């Protein structure tokens, strides 16, 4: 009896390991053929309007230093692969920064400019532009070392039941991923297409805006965009998305 139980448990572990090896399907795979085609077509994807705005800002000098992104980084192609390894811990300050945070850090430290407000078209545009440079590249974030504590906090957040609905992220995005909810398909919660153009918003939005919608959905506390709670969760989601290709700017319903 005991031997059989051990066997079953072992089989379970092996099965888990097998499931983990294959990257999870992104939200894009749940879109209709029409929306998939629109997302793939640069001329039709409305998110490219924000990418174009990002291109303009990349060249625009700002702040006391009167320098643009291009003054230090050169062509935006130098950002290839960057989005695939964010969020990451900043070596100098020890803080966990996502792409938005990293861009604003450049603004305050190197340009001597005001940080761009979260969810502003300017920050969405620059973030989408930088993330776009990693299109098709597999996500590979550092979850150990200095990032370990943040990753653990994010994992705990993901599995903690919260809000009036008493649901954890995992209740939907692990247990029921692929099932229907309110006319849409529940994703695996990878976030590899963000910032995304969401039809419900009629606009571009950040991952943290989406997380606020999720928190609202389960009637839980909505944290501020850029808050430590959502940053840690973003790192955990990126860890789950290991090996999944970046597809910014994605379209979501």
């Amino acid at each position: 009896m005991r031997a059989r139980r051990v066997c079953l448990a072992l089989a379970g572990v092996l099965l888990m390991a097998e499931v983990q090896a294959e990257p999870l399907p992104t939200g894009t795979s749940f879109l209709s053929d029409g929306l998939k085609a629109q997302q793939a077509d640069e001329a039709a994807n409305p998110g490219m309007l924000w990418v174009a705005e990002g291109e303009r800002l990349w060249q625009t000098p700002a702040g006391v230093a009167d320098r643009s992104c291009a003054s230090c980084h050169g062509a935006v192609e130098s950002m290839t692969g960057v989005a695939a390894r964010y969020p990451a811990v900043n070596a100098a300050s020890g803080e966990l920064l996502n792409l938005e945070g990293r861009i604003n850090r450049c603004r305050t430290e190197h340009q001597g400019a005001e940080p761009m407000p979260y969810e502003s078209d300017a920050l969405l545009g620059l973030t989408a532009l930088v993330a776009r440079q990693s299109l098709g590249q597999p996500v590979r974030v550092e979850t150990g070392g200095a990032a370990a504590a943040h990753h653990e906090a994010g994992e705990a957040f993901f599995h903690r039941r919260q809000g009036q609905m008493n649901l954890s992220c995992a209740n939907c995005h692990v247990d029921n991923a692929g099932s229907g909810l309110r006319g849409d398909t529940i994703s695996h919660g990878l976030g590899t297409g963000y910032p995304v153009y969401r039809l419900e918003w009629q606009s571009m939005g950040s991952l943290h805006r989406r997380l606020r919608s999720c928190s609202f959905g389960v009637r839980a506390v909505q944290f501020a965009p850029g808050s430590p709670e959502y940053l840690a969760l973003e790192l955990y989601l990126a860890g789950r998305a290991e090996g999944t290709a970046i597809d910014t700017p994605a379209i979501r319903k």
Partner: protein
Amino acid sequence: MSLAPARVSMPAEAKAGDVIEIKALMRHPMETGYRVDSRGQPIARHIVRRFSAEYDGEEVFAMDLTQGVAANPFIAFHTVATRSGELVFSWEDDRGEVVTVRKRLTVTG
């Protein structure tokens, strides 16, 4: 949000008689005028009223837009390449703002 930018995608070259596809994407809130803000005050209507495309001085496509069209309207249409010339695309909204994009088409053969 200001009325820029707009993006137009089309081939730069075509053979005479070819049917070419033109895709126009414009950034606009397309506010319906039916919504209210967080204090219950109506949000004024702000929509693109008309989109048109001129090819070598002749209007080849036009569209009247209404409050039923989603934000950031995407318009795709076809035309026949006849001779080399300039295509002028314009969007005019109900506040009188006009955005114009010009593209050159070279026709061979």
